[in-house]
């Protein structure tokens, strides 16, 4: 019996099980539970553990077993009060920590302090904890080192060093990702770009903004608003998400239908490769057909091919007039027809087309404060939010009203309201943006982000509803204009039985209809092994070759995006 197995055996017989990750290779096949109590991770660098027991209990490690494990504390007191059962999915994947990666040593820390200065090298537990957990509180890593570089040269030096030392790194921005791509899986060094938040330049004539990757999206929007421009993307997380992360994940957002993908709006990037090479592609030219356009490889690569440090964005003019309408439809078919009518009648003025089903709106109204139902007279099955943006308010308003009046006469809309001032408009948006926020408050949530043909978009919601019955609440909402469904399944607790009903059914269904299992959220850790549902083997193999070319040691954001089996060599 190996020491680790013996240890596991002893623990299992105790009044509860202490799960240890890393050094012992004692990875549970099921999720670990994090409860709102004191974490077991003491100052020991080599383990972090969680207890599954509901009762407060004390766990003592006898010295003989301690001898096996380097640096464990002798006595661990754990006190728990369970508010939620939340498995940290980081350890629930079958990936083991790659033994090829080194662990951070004191020399490494000293080296980083030399490069960055004391203030930018963080080993403080509280700040590490915040950086180790993702926004949904679903993924938790155990990094012991957080670095805050202030400029490109520092990032380059960090990566150069990590590459020679074979230290895995995780590039991190606002940490608002929904697939666990922004937090470490094990003890990867976190390189957080929040300190790189300068606006470098703004071309007022063409609306081309150059800024560092750590700039928060909302701040960029405020800056641009003063100049009469806006960012081409807008998402619910804009108060925290950073442009570098948006580009790395090729974020879509609410105005995708109007301004298109970041592939079209990003004119240039500055990227640091795995070995520290600074790749300067920071052009502000609209047209440049000299050679292969490399920046597109990095847009959407989720930090696995390079760390983005500067971005050149083409910003559209701020529309002087926006009109928002909140509409109710009786069935999904009407929503589809309304989309077709809207695209035809509103033409270039349309800037958002979102849909929510009845349960999503109920969720937002219940959990978000200060939000009231614009159509309180009855509960409808589907709600649609249409926004137009243009330069002439009355012209757009007339178009919108004409569209809505006709749609009402055709029976596509049962009822609706048009916002009469900016406050009403933002309250409609609050409902739509609040749905995601509200799901986090309801307990456990399983989020899926699918791209499907518009006719099939809602069918998957209905199928999942039938499969789960009363066990969970299913919400469907999303960017109908882009064919992007956000499927959220809410239950009181995380439950593997519910998960088994959802996955792999949802992925198989999507693959069957030639959809994408990740429309805009990315693969991250959550869908790292699932790429084959949406991409053929040849595609994936070529991706693996590119990854190995740009990052031969595989230190950039490991265990994510591409299947581990293909990357091991």
């Amino acid at each position, binding site marked *: 019996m190996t020491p680790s197995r013996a240890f596991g055996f002893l623990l299992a017989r105790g009044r509860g099980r202490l799960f240890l990750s890393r050094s012992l290779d004692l990875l549970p096949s099921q999720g670990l539970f994090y409860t709102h109590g004191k974490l077991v991770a003491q100052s020991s660098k080599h383990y972090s553990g969680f207890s599954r027991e509901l009762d407060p209990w004390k766990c003592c490690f006898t010295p003989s077993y301690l001898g096996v494990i380097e640096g464990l504390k002798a006595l661990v007191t754990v006190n728990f009060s369970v508010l939620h059962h939340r498995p940290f999915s980081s350890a629930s994947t079958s990936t083991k920590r790659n033994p090829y990666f080194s662990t951070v040593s004191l020399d490494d820390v000293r080296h980083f302090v030399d490069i960055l200065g004391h203030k930018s090298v963080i080993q403080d537990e509280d700040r590490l904890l915040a950086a180790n957990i993702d926004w949904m509180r679903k993924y938790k890593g155990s990094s012991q080192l957080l670095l805050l570089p202030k400029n490109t040269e520092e990032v380059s030096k960090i990566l150069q060093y990590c590459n020679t030392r074979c230290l895995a790194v995780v590039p991190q921005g606002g940490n608002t990702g929904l697939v666990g791509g922004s937090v470490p899986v094990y003890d990867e060094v976190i390189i957080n770009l929040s300190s790189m938040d300068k606006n470098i330049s703004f071309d007022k004539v063409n609306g081309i903004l150059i800024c560092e990757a750590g700039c928060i999206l909302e701040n960029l929007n405020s800056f641009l608003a003063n100049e009469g421009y806006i960012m081409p993307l807008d998402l619910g997380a804009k108060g925290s998400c950073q442009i570098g992360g948006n580009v790395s994940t090729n974020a879509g957002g609410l105005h995708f239908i109007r301004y298109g993908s970041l592939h079209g709006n990003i004119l240039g990037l500055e990227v640091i490769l795995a070995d520290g090479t600074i790749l300067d592609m920071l052009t502000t030219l609209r047209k440049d057909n000299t050679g292969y356009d490399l920046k597109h490889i990095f847009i959407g690569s989720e930090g696995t091919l390079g760390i983005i440090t500067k971005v050149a964005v083409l910003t559209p003019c701020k529309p*002087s007039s926006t009109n928002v309408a909140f*509409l109710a439809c009786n069935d999904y078919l009407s929503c589809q027809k309304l989309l077709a009518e809207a695209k035809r009648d509103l033409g270039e003025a349309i800037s958002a087309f979102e849909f929510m089903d009845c349960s999503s709106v109920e969720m937002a109204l219940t959990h978000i404060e200060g939000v009231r139902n614009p159509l309180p007279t009855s509960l409808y099955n589907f709600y649609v939010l249409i926004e137009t943006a243009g330069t002439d308010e009355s012209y757009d308003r007339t178009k919108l*009203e004409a569209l809505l*009046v006709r749609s009402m006469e055709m029976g596509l809309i049962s009822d609706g309201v048009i916002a*009469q*001032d*900016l406050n*009403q408009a933002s309250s409609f948006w609050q409902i739509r943006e609040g749905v995601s926020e509200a799901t986090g408050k309801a307990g456990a949530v399983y989020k899926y982000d699918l791209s499907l043909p518009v006719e099939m978009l809602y069918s998957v919601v209905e199928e999942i509803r039938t499969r789960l019955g009363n066990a969970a609440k299913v919400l469907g909402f999303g960017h109908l204009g882009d064919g992007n469904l956000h499927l959220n399944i809410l239950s009181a607790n995380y439950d593997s039985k519910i998960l088994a009903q959802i996955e792999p059914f949802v992925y198989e269904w999507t693959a069957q209809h030639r959809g994408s299992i990740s429309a805009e959220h990315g693969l991250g850790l959550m869908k790292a092994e699932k790429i084959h549902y949406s991409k053929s083997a040849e595609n994936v193999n070529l991706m693996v070759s590119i990854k190995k070319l740009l990052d031969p040691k595989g230190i950039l954001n490991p265990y994510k995006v591409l299947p581990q089996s293909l990357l091991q060599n």
Partner: protein
Amino acid sequence: MKILVAVKRVVDYAVKIRVKPNKSGVETSNVKMSMNPFCEIALEEALRIRENGVASEVVAVSVGPAQCTETLRTALAMGADRAIHVDVGPTTVYPLSVAKILRAIAEAEQPGLLILGKQAIDDDCNQTGQMVAGLLKWSQGTFASKVEHSQVSQEDLDLLPVGGTLPDKDIFGIIIQVLLDKEKQIATVEREVDGGLETICVDLPAVITTDLRLNQPRYATLPNIMKAKSKIIKKIPLEELNVDLRSDFEVVQVTEPPKRKAGMILSTVDELIDKLKNEAHVL
């Protein structure tokens, strides 16, 4: 009974305003304009009184440039029955002129209630309602946070001693004596004043100006927007009303308030004393 509601078209509440470079006023071109929020509350109150069956018609009136018709369309979409637009062109009109115009309209329309917002968010004057009540010699209930309209029934009137007060458990504070004229009706207005809440009874016809907590205005739903297209907006030219728009004062300059300086973090008490003495001049 008819209710007349005066609405004003102002810069939208959520817009960040800027002063024009020549300091003559606030930038209003290319800026989103909507109905004054207090006027929305006034209109909502009028609609509720009509829905309670006490009034028969709600008429919206606006004094301003040609684009006021958009604001009046919103009023009609919210549920007003018809609208009146007094076009004064691009000149700014000040409260006294507006009050004179409203007096003329009220004398023509003979409403039982004239409801306005307590102030406009662009000039914050808070004068029009009080001025028009003075000009019309009507009673006024300003800063209304609750309005109840009661009809004195024949029985109650018969029971009242001459010059007596109406026993009503809801009324507290000052009660104005009710005249025994059987046609007269009263409105009970709860006002937000500096000292708290004051409840008064006012004879009708009366002017009421609405405060923020009176109600939450409804959204303009599509069916109502459609109906509003067929409702009339009557244009009354200024000449017909015999009102002199000449203002008694002239705006000389409009400037932004001085920008707040960022705070400083000091490291010692000595530094603090030094700054208080030499920079802030308070010691």
